[in-house]
C-alpha cells in the first residue's frame, strides 16, 4: 500500500517540479509575471519538500522498527498512515497565492498562467467555488486571447472533481467563443483527452473522444498541435491491450544497452517507476 501511496504524493511533486523546470527554460530576461510565478513555485516546492521529507521519515522509521522487531522475533508494528497526497489545507494555501497574483495581473495575458494554476491545484484543495471562479475569468475576460491555450489542459483536469459535464460545458464555451483556431482545437482536446487516454479502446466513450480529436486536428493550424493530437490517438491504439508491444531499445541504469525483446518468450512485467 505505502509504495503506491508514496507514488501518489510523488506524482504531485513531479507535477510541481515540471512547472518550475519549465519556467526556468527561458534564457531571456524574465518578465515581472514570470518572476512572480517562479517565486510562488519556489514557495510551493519548499513546502512540498518539507512534507515529503516528513512522510519519508515516517516510513523509514517504521521500516527500521519492523526490521528490528523481525530480528527479535516480535510481531511487526502496524504501518503508519501515509498521506495519499498533499493535505487540502496546504493546497488551499497554494491556491490563495495564485489568486493574489492573478489579481495583480488581472485583465492582462499574464493572469492566464496564474488562473490556470488555480484550476489545476484547486481540485486537491477541494475548492470548487474558487476553481469555478478562475474558469469563469478565463472564459470571459480572456476569451479573445491566444494565450488562453496554455490554460486549457488545466481546465481539462478539473473534470476529476467538477464532473465531466461541468468541465465539458466550460470547454465547449471556449470552443464556441474563441476567435483562435488553435484555442478551439486545444479546447476540444482538453475536453476529450481523459476518455482518449483512459476509456477502453473500442468503447463508445473512446470512439466519441477519437472522433472529436480527429475534428480538432482539422481545426488546428499549428503543425505541432496537429501532430500532438494525432499522436495521442495513434499511440493509444498501438499500445493497447491485445496489440503487439513495441520493442524498446535503451540502456539500463548502469549504462548497458539492452532491448525489451531480449526477454521475449517470458512473461514481461514492464513497470514504469520512479523514486520520488
Amino acid at each position: 500500500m505505502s509504495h503506491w501511496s508514496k507514488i501518489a504524493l510523488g506524482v504531485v511533486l513531479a507535477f510541481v517540479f515540471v512547472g518550475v523546470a519549465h519556467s526556468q527554460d527561458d534564457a531571456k530576461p524574465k518578465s515581472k509575471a514570470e518572476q512572480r510565478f517562479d517565486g510562488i513555485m519556489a514557495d510551493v516546492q519548499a513546502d512540498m519538500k518539507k512534507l515529503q521529507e516528513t512522510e519519508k521519515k515516517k516510513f523509514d522509521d517504521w521500516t527500521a522498527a519492523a526490521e528490528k522487531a523481525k530480528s527479535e522475533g516480535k510481531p511487526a508494528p502496524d504501518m503508519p498512515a501515509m498521506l495519499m497526497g498533499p493535505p487540502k489545507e496546504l493546497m488551499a494555501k497554494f491556491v490563495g497565492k495564485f489568486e493574489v497574483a492573478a489579481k495583480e495581473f488581472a485583465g492582462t495575458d499574464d493572469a492566464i498562467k496564474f488562473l490556470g494554476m488555480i484550476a489545476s491545484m484547486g481540485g486537491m484543495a477541494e475548492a470548487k467555488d474558487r476553481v469555478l471562479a478562475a474558469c469563469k475569468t478565463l472564459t470571459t475576460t480572456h476569451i479573445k486571447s491566444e494565450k488562453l491555450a496554455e490554460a486549457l489542459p488545466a481546465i481539462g483536469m478539473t473534470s476529476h472533481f467538477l464532473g465531466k459535464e461541468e468541465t465539458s460545458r466550460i470547454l465547449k464555451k471556449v470552443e464556441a467563443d474563441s476567435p483562435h483556431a488553435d484555442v478551439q482545437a486545444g479546447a476540444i482536446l482538453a475536453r476529450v483527452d481523459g476518455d482518449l487516454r483512459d476509456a477502453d479502446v473500442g468503447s463508445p466513450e473512446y470512439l466519441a473522444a477519437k472522433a472529436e480529436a480527429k475534428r480538432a486536428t482539422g481545426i488546428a493550424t499549428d503543425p505541432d498541435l496537429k501532430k500532438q493530437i494525432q499522436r495521442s490517438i495513434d499511440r493509444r491504439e498501438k499500445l493497447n491491450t491485445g496489440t503487439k508491444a513495441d520493442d524498446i531499445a535503451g540502456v539500463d541504469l548502469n549504462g548497458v544497452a539492452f532491448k525489451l525483446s531480449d526477454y521475449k518468450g517470458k512473461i514481461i512485467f514492464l513497470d514504469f517507476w520512479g523514486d520520488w
Partner: protein
Amino acid sequence: MYPHERSLVDEMKNRPFALIGVNSDDNLAKIQKIVKEKNINWRSFQNQPEGAKEAISSEWAVSGWPTVVVIDADMKIVYRGHDGNAAIETARRLVKELEGKK
C-alpha cells in the same frame, strides 16, 4: 519501499518471467545509490538517457505513475494500467499457463 516488486521477483525466480523497469528519475547517481540501498533486484531502462530524443514513457503514452504493462511470451500486451495487484495477478496467471505448456 519496493516490497511488491521485490517479492514478485523472488517468487518468479527461475520461472519464465522478467520484471523490467522503466525508471524516470533524472538523477542517475541518486537512483544507482537507491538501487543498492533498497536491494532493487530488477533491471531498468533509463526512461530518457542523455541524448535520447524522446522518453520511453512518452513513446508508450504513459501519463500516470506507476503504470504497469504485462506482456505475454509473444510480446502481446495483456494488461495495461495502474492497479499493481491486478497486474501481478495477470502475470501470475500467464506464467502458470506458460509453464503448463512446456
